[in-house]
């Protein structure tokens, strides 16, 4: 079962900048798919197509079997939650809690349940103390956390996150990854863009490699061991892929690598990859 199918998708911005060319992708449900690519390779534009923020003009996008078109937009958007790359672009209410409640309110949920969801979401990213602050009076990372809470409160089936960890401090980023892993266990699909090849190597099931608006390759995380491919995409090899290139063991996380090398058996909570 595919969560997302993209066929022959091309897109140019109104000023004619080409952004996507002939994208074909089938993204598996209940998996973590990382999108990698240099600046301007089209990651954000692709993510915008997933819930019809940019409507597909050439080609088609299908989410959970539903074609993304005007008639299905509401259902698609209910299924797909989007996290924007800049939290400034995402928040507009006068208080953090009001902003988080915005999505659930649009779903016309009961006020008591909305309140619960909002508090639960704030607790998860530890911003309870920011509830009544205006979103533009926060630090960048606090804004990002608030934006994440807004996404979590909607409990979408598919989470499409554009650079979800940038700006977060490492501990919070680790907690957020744990939350996402739990959601995945419960059946959610995660699609995220990132510049961190090490993160993708350790924490993605599938990877999409983009270059100049095209998909260069799309497969399991092992793709990130392919030096020639990454070079073509102007991306570096993940550190662990590089270090263990000539060895049989292929650890993906630092903790695994430490074990292999017998460096330090009790590596606890290796929040860094």
């Amino acid at each position, binding site marked *: 079962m595919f969560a997302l199918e993209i066929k022959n998708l091309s897109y140019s911005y109104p000023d004619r900048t080409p952004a996507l060319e002939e994208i074909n992708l089938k993204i598996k449900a209940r998996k973590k798919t990382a999108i990698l690519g240099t600046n301007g390779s089209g990651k954000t534009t692709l993510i915008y197509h997933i819930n019809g*923020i940019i409507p597909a003009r050439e080609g088609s996008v299908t989410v959970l079997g539903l074609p993304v078109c005007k008639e299905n937009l509401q259902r698609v*958007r209910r299924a797909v939650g*989007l996290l924007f790359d800049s939290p400034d672009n995402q*928040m507009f209410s006068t208080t953090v809690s009001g902003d988080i409640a915005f999505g659930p309110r649009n779903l016309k949920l009961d006020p008591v349940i909305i309140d619960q969801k909002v508090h639960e979401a704030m607790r998860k990213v530890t911003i309870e103390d920011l509830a009544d*602050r205006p979103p533009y009076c926060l630090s960048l990372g606090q804004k990002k956390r608030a934006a994440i809470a*807004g996404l979590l409160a909607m409990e979408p089936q598919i989470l499409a996150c554009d650079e979800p960890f940038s700006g977060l401090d490492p501990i919070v980023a680790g907690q957020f990854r744990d939350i996402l892993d739990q959601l995945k266990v419960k059946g959610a699909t995660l699609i995220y863009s990132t510049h961190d090849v090490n993160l993708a190597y350790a924490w993605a099931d599938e990877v999409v490699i983009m270059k100049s608006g095209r998909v260069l390759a799309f497969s399991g995380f092992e793709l990130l061991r392919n030096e020639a491919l990454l070079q073509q995409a102007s991306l570096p090899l993940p550190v662990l892929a590089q270090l263990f290139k000539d060895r049989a063991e292929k650890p993906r996380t630092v903790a695994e690598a430490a074990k292999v090398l017998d460096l330090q058996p009790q590596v606890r909570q290796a929040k860094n990859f």
Partner: protein
Amino acid sequence: MGDNHHTHQLEQHSSYRNAVQPWEPRTKLVAGIIFVFGVISINDLRLLAGALVFAVLFALWTGLAVGQLIKKLLVLAPFLALMSLPLVFSAGIPPAPDRVILASLIILKALTAMTFTLFVFTNQPIEEMLEAMEHLRVPAAITTTIYLAYRYGFLFIHEMQTTVRALKSRLFNAQISRYSLGIYGELSGGLFIKSINRSETVYRAMAARSFQGSIPIGAPRQIAAADWFKAAVPPLYIISLIIIEQVVL
């Protein structure tokens, strides 16, 4: 961090709530509009003075401090000066008494109406006013436009502030010269376009969170007997003033 501030805000909030929250917003809005229209149709200085006292009492009851009220009303000062000074003095000195009376009427009416407007709208979240309007059958296109305009307006103000910061960090000196005038032109254009873009991204973010073009509103609150009573007082008061003016004086 931020805890002090947080509790401070909460305290402030709850004290407002105690005073005024119980008044249901629809009846408050309608009572307010009737009162304000009533005020401008009175043309007796003594009666207007009575209306002003009434409005001030209401505003203070909202939880508005005297200093705050005066500060807000001072915004009117230049405007009232522009309206009244020429009116009083343009027909020669010493001014004719009828002109002094007309100017005083304008000033009293303006102060009274503005004070009462403050009472209706301060310490009430904009969402509540909009919900009240929707429940009063104002078309959703209008309330949604108000809601979005409010947000975009502050976004724009915020954008202006960040731009000023960016300018300073790159050594821009505010001064009047041909060079700076050119920059101002470019800046205001850039700011405008940037805001348009920002508001487009924000609209995208709203759409991404299932926004369907109209603000989600809750069911209208029950209008209690106390609300009807409160809503009756200002209109009855102003109507009795009008009757006194028409019949008694």
